């Protein structure tokens, strides 16, 4: 879309955009380019600048089973938390959209979790799901040793997924609800006149009409699961026990800032960037298609 009426003074126009351009140059483009440079070089142990090593950092990374483990866990984490958060949010949104009594209360309460900082809810869930105190400790009283996220990797993963999904249910809910409310009432009413029940209308009218939102949220949720999970993991498990919850961003942080392996961390950053870019391109294509529908 283009404006018909525009201003012609180039200098004023540039002045308005220069602060933003300077910021993104310094904090976005330069660092990204530097990550590329680091990923293909290796810092000398005794100083003296970086040495060009080509794809060595990458091949080293990709032949490292620990790194593949982190990728696998990130995928696992992303897919399962997305499935839980989106599934529950969709059900709740479909039911809230029926505008039963009190639907305004649901609408406002379900968004609250999204306002909580990831590390704060990490700490809250660490207590709630702790093996010796809190809410779930009752399980251990009945079956001793059944639940222990501090020792059992699988339990730790479940705990992290639960905490993350809880935050994103509200987020997804808001998008689903606004999409559902965008569906013209006349459609639903006409279907009801033709004798279709609520379930049939959900399956044949509402779900197909919210698929664009569904795909949009799918991409957003997976991207967010890469980045927003850091706070939760750092507070709840610190990647442990025995790397069982070490996700990609956590590994970058750990290798780069604790292990001081900048080249390795930069190579990991590049791989993660590529992953996110692919997802985003997928999303842009989808939004484009949706615009055509309108």
């Amino acid at each position, binding site marked *: 879309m283009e404006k018909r009426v525009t201003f012609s003074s180039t200098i004023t126009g540039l002045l308005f955009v220069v602060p933003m351009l300077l910021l993104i140059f310094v904090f976005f483009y330069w660092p990204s380019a530097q990550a590329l440079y680091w990923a293909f070089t290796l810092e000398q142990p005794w100083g003296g600048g970086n040495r060009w090593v080509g794809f060595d950092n990458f091949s080293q990374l990709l032949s490292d089973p620990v790194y593949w483990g982190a990728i696998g866990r990130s995928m696992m984490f992303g897919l399962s938390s997305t499935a839980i958060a989106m599934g529950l949010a969709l059900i709740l949104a479909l039911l809230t959209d029926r505008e039963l009594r009190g639907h305004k209360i649901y609408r406002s309460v*379900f968004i609250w979790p999204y306002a909580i900082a990831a590390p704060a809810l990490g700490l809250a869930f660490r207590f709630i799901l702790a093996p010796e*105190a809190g809410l779930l400790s009752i399980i251990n009283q009945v079956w001793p040793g059944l639940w222990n996220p501090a020792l059992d990797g699988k339990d730790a993963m479940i705990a992290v997924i639960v905490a993350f999904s809880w935050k994103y249910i509200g987020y997804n809910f808001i998008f689903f609800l606004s999409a559902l409310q965008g569906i013209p009432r006349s459609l639903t009413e006409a279907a009801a006149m033709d004798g279709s029940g609520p379930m049939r209308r959900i399956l044949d009218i509402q779900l197909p009409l919210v698929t664009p939102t569904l795909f949009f949220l799918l991409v957003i949720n997976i991207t967010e699961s890469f980045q927003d999970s850091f706070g939760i993991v750092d507070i709840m498990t610190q990647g442990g026990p025995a790397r069982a919850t070490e996700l990609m961003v956590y590994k970058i942080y750990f290798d780069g800032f604790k292990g001081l392996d900048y080249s390795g961390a930069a190579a990991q950053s590049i791989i993660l960037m590529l992953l996110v870019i692919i997802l985003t391109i997928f999303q842009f294509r989808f939004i484009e298609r949706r615009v055509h529908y309108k």
Partner: protein
Amino acid sequence: MIERTPIFNLICYTILALGLVIALLPFGIVIIAATLDLKAVNTVPMPLVPSSHFWANVQEAWTRADLGNKLVHSMIFAVAVAFGKVLLSSMAAFTIVYFRFPGRYLIFWLIFITLMLPLEVRIVPTYSIAANALQPFQAILDVTGLTSLFAWLFGIKIKLEWGLLNSYPGLVLPLVATATGTFLYRQFYLTVPDELAEAAKIDGSGPVRFFVDVLLPLSRANMIALFTIMFVWAWNQYLWPLLITTDPKFGIAVTELKTLIPSEFGLPDWNVAMAGTLIIMSPPLILVILMQRWFVRGLISTDK
């Protein structure tokens, strides 16, 4: 509701009530645990009746996590990010929508590509810039030979340095440097009728005048929405503040949560930890409850 479906409605109510419980339960547990004493909080099962130790726990958490200072830091940080975002993105979007000059599309794309890579994804390189934010310019001067030219001409060696560690600019600027807000503003400007700009031009107003007197007042709703969502987003940032605030005196509230985790071999004083969590998570929550309408609006329009 279109037809009478009593049984289905009952199922709906049950599921919604269950959803409500899931959404509210963690809040409830945090609040109750914050009122218990050390012994009660470690009993299994945890008592679900609040007790009277809330104030003592809050005081303990307050001193342990140095919340007096840290909450002020967080507040300044989040307000600065939100304000910077609103200011810079309203300006940048103005250029993108209302001006025609060569290279306009390049600028548009340069800004929008930043949407793709959030800070967490490019954390290592961004951190390297924090030691000296003017490093790109220094490098450009060095490579183009301007540094040596200056040294030869005036005998002065140019050294640009601006360390960002443990400073507000270091906390704020990298978080402002993304396109989320610009996108929201662009969408809004595109809906402003052309007649307004036309009328302003006929009346002899230039672009600056039009921006300040027409566009900014018109975009008040967007401004509030963007400000709310960005405040919440900034307050909840964790990884970047963790890296940039190496001085323990200059931390923000959210990164202090780490000091509240009961240590493995110390006292399991979860009551204090939960009191601290409650304080730290409250400001954005209160803002969201108060500004629900704007928050939702900002959320839905920034991300699309």
